[in-house]
């Protein structure tokens, strides 16, 4: 067995074929985006450093590194930079790329001489870190960077080397992979933390007899607290107090060795690695802090004479070293677990997928894994089953619970020709669908990608934290040295001890972690929660913009209204001069007659009538002798009866007495409904009112938006009269009518010029320019067509109330981010001076390094926990 080093990438890198690679620009552009894991980052300074090392590469346009997900997303010019360059840049910065291993069964590995060429061929694939073949087991183990290389590319490399891959290489499920990595990290931290904690408790006890002998004595808050314990212990374990102090010191030294050399080793290794690359982070602070305490104690143990000669007590701080390491490891453990929960939304989304599908192959129904369904396959879906892929119903009918897509719990009726979405839940009926989108193209896969991208993105508000984090650690080290000098020069005797304690305490209490986690954890939880609530947010910038809106523009057709005309009123004659809403029987009769005629018409209003009849499941009689009268109506023969459908003027012209409907026609017209009359054999049968009805949810949504302090404006291409009627019914007081798409953009520009931050809500097709021009474009898409490109926020439910949820969620997330940043800054601004001993001249109190480590561990856990509160975000409208 041997391993082969990755090779520098040659001319044609494979990034464009990588699984995470998507064209970042328009189709055919030379810009691609790749995402891959980064290992070894602990704080905001690391993020800045990795990001800089990536953007410094020629050909990299943008790099985005996320501490919460431990992932880097890089936008690069196709062909200018390869995976090998990215890996090298990360390693140059003192970090590493996260890697995955795959075990591949290879046929044809017969001779010892086969091994090296095969390994070399696979290791040469860009994105592969190592390849080692095992001839005894006929396997090849490949270590690769997920996101930088595809499985088919690896299979091709094996084939090109002259071998056969026995089975397709299975890539680890990204969610499962992350869960495994997370649990590995938790286990590792727990083991190290347990050892450190065990040593810490023993050291505490064993160092009790040494306390109060000298040093900082009663000024140390911790010593004051443990004083009663000290006396109790002296009574309980008198033999411990009988051990000579020097022997106790040796015992403590031995006890601390495993803590420093094993439990805390990652801190020192990372601190050293960072130091060599002129980068300082969290590990530097911990390493220098505990290292200084350890060195001081070791010297005091083995060369106490030097201290005594200088008039200093030979104090030891072994218990502080162990306790600090233990507390920080516990903090990291809690943080790792909490960070795992911040990304749980993706896991839940992917958990919605159906595992298997029943596909017709050669006329026989066979069960196959859902991933193997092909476009064009006919898939049978039984009651209670998940729909495995996106498709069109070809036979049968049912109601499907689409709440995963829209947040709307009421099942939606599906019949032949209707689209169904994968991962939605079939309720009562059975149907057969023809697969139209599978695998990465399904709506669910799109949603997951969108949420993943959003969770990995950064908000502009993070820039402040990044700027601080970039200089944080060197500044803190300087403050610690300054504290040392001041204590040494002006402090009470023994000044060297006081100086060392405050030096260590300042290093330990300072915490750039909280600063680094403040924004990304909140964005992860916020966008994840949004996805569960039918609000798909494109990223941190969109979230931030949505939290600061002044004006929200609502497109009328399709956003406030349903977007297609419907029969809103149906009246039947009641005596010679009055009309009343039709009874169900009358309704069926009127609609059947009208639809039988209109079925042959091409007028858009005719479609609304036919649709209404179809939804009621009415049998339509056959019409003959159809005649359309342009812009006025139509006539036809139904059996022996002559039927006329059309405007009031048309029927009057035909000699029909429309007496019962005269008033109703006027009322409907005043309400912006289009009246359509039906007459049979010259007698009036009924009156239909047609309109593009306002969605029932729009009124409440507009009210909520206004209550949130937003200015609401209705924009529409429709005429002013209709726009005002719709605005009046929904409670909107400003209207911009007669707008072409370019006109909507001008309205937005005008508002923006007046200093307002504008959101545009539209259905994403003709509104695309306006969506792009607005500060926040919100695409509202009924059904499955997610207009991801132009919009910052997508609301698949097509319900305006989701826009309210989006704004509420954005505000809640930004509030959380501000709280986190405030806490992280305030913690350091207050904690560091106290640790330096600022309170000593006034209160005679100096913080113990042990306290400092507890405070530090708590500060980053507090930030992550605060972000997790967003998981309980409850919108006004439970859509």
């Amino acid at each position: 067995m041997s391993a082969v080093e990755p090779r520098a990438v040659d001319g044609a890198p494979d990034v464009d074929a990588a699984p995470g690679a998507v064209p970042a620009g328009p189709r055919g552009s030379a810009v691609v985006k790749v995402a891959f894991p980064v290992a070894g980052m602990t704080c905001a300074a690391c993020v800045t450093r990795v990001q800089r090392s990536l953007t410094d590469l020629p050909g990299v346009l943008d790099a985005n590194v996320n501490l919460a997900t431990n992932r880097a997303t890089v936008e690069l010019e196709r062909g200018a930079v390869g995976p090998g360059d990215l890996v090298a840049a990360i390693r140059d910065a003192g970090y590493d790329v996260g890697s995955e291993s795959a075990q591949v069964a290879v046929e044809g590995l017969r001779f010892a001489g086969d091994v090296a060429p095969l390994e070399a061929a696979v290791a040469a694939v860009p994105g592969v870190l190592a390849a080692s073949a095992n001839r005894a087991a006929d396997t090849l183990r490949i270590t690769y960077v997920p996101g930088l290389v595809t499985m088919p590319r690896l299979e091709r490399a094996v084939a090109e080397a002259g071998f056969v891959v026995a089975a397709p290489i299975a890539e680890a499920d990204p969610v499962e992979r992350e869960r495994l990595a997370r649990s590995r990290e938790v286990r590792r931290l727990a083991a190290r933390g347990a050892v450190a904690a065990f040593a810490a408790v023993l050291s505490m006890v064993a160092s009790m007899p040494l306390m109060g002998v000298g040093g900082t004595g009663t000024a140390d808050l911790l010593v004051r607290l443990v004083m009663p314990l000290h006396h109790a212990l002296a009574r309980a374990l008198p033999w411990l107090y009988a051990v000579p102090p020097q022997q106790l010191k040796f015992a403590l030294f031995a006890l601390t060795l495993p803590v420093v050399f094993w439990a805390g080793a990652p801190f020192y290794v990372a601190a050293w690695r960072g130091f060599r690359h002129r980068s300082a982070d969290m590990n530097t602070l911990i390493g220098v802090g505990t290292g200084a305490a350890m060195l001081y104690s070791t010297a005091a143990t083995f060369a106490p004479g030097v201290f005594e000669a200088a008039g200093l007590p030979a104090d030891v701080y072994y218990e502080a070293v162990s306790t600090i390491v233990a507390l920080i490891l516990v903090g990291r453990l809690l943080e790792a677990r909490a960070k795992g929960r911040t990304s749980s939304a993706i896991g839940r989304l992917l958990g919605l997928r159906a595992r298997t599908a029943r596909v017709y192959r050669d006329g026989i129904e066979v069960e196959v894994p859902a991933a193997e369904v092909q476009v064009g396959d006919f898939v049978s879906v039984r009651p209670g089953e998940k729909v495995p892929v996106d498709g069109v119903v070809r036979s049968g009918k049912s109601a499907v619970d689409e709440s995963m897509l829209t947040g709307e719990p009421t099942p939606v009726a599906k019949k032949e020709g209707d689209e169904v979405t994968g991962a939605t839940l079939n309720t009562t009926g059975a149907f057969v669908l023809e697969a139209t989108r599978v695998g990465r193209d399904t709506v669910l896969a799109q949603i997951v990608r969108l949420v993943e991208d959003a969770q990995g993105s950064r908000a502009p508000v993070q820039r402040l934290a990044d700027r601080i984090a970039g200089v944080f650690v060197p500044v803190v080290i300087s403050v610690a040295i300054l504290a040392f000098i001041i204590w040494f020069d002006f402090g009470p005797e023994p000044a060297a001890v006081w100086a060392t304690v405050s030096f260590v305490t300042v290093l330990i209490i300072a915490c750039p972690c909280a600063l680094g986690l403040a924004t990304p954890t909140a964005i992860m939880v916020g966008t994840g929660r949004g996805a569960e609530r039918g609000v798909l947010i494109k990223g941190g910038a969109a979230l931030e913009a949505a939290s600061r809106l002044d004006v929200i523009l609502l497109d009328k057709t399709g956003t406030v209204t349903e977007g297609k005309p419907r029969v809103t009123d149906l009246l039947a004659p009641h005596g010679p001069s009055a009309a009343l809403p039709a009874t169900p029987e009358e309704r069926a009769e009127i609609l059947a007659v009208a639809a039988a005629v209109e079925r042959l018409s091409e007028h858009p209003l005719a479609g609304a009538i036919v649709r209404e009849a179809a939804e009621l499941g009415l049998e339509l009689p056959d019409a003959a002798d159809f005649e359309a009268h342009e812009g006025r109506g139509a006539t036809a023969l139904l059996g022996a009866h002559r039927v006329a459908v059309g405007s009031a003027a048309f029927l009057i012209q035909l000699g029909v007495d429309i007496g019962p409907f005269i008033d109703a026609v006027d009322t409907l017209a005043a309400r912006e409904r289009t009246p359509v009359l039906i007459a049979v054999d010259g007698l009036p049968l009924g009156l239909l009112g047609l309109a593009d009805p306002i969605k029932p949810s729009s009124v409440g949504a507009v009210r909520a938006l206004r209550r949130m302090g937003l200015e609401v404006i209705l924009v529409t291409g429709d005429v002013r009269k209709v726009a005002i009627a719709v605005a009046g019914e929904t409670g909107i007081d400003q209207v911009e009518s007669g707008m072409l798409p370019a006109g909507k953009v001008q309205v937005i520009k005008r508002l923006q010029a007046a200093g307002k931050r504008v959101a545009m809500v539209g259905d994403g097709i003709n509104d695309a320019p306006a969506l792009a021009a607005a500060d926040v474009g919100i695409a509202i898409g009924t059904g499955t067509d997610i207009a991801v490109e132009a919009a910052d926020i997508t609301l698949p439910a097509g319900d305006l109330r989701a826009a309210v949820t989006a704004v509420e969620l954005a505000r809640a997330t930004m509030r959380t981010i501000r709280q986190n940043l405030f806490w992280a800054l305030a913690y350091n601004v207050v904690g560091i001076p106290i640790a330096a001993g600022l309170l000593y001249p006034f209160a005679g109190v100096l913080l113990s390094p042990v306290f400092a480590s507890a405070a530090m561990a708590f500060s980053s856990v507090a930030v992550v926990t605060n972000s997790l509160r967003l998981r309980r975000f409850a919108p006004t409208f439970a859509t």
Partner: protein
Amino acid sequence: MHVAQFVVTVAGFAAIGWVLWYFLVPAGRGAPRPPEGGV
């Protein structure tokens, strides 16, 4: 003791200057590559 204080003060400020220079002044490229393997 005054000598010790003088030495600590001078060395301390020199250390501060060095720390700020070492970590904050951008390093030239071509720094040594770290060994293989993660934390």
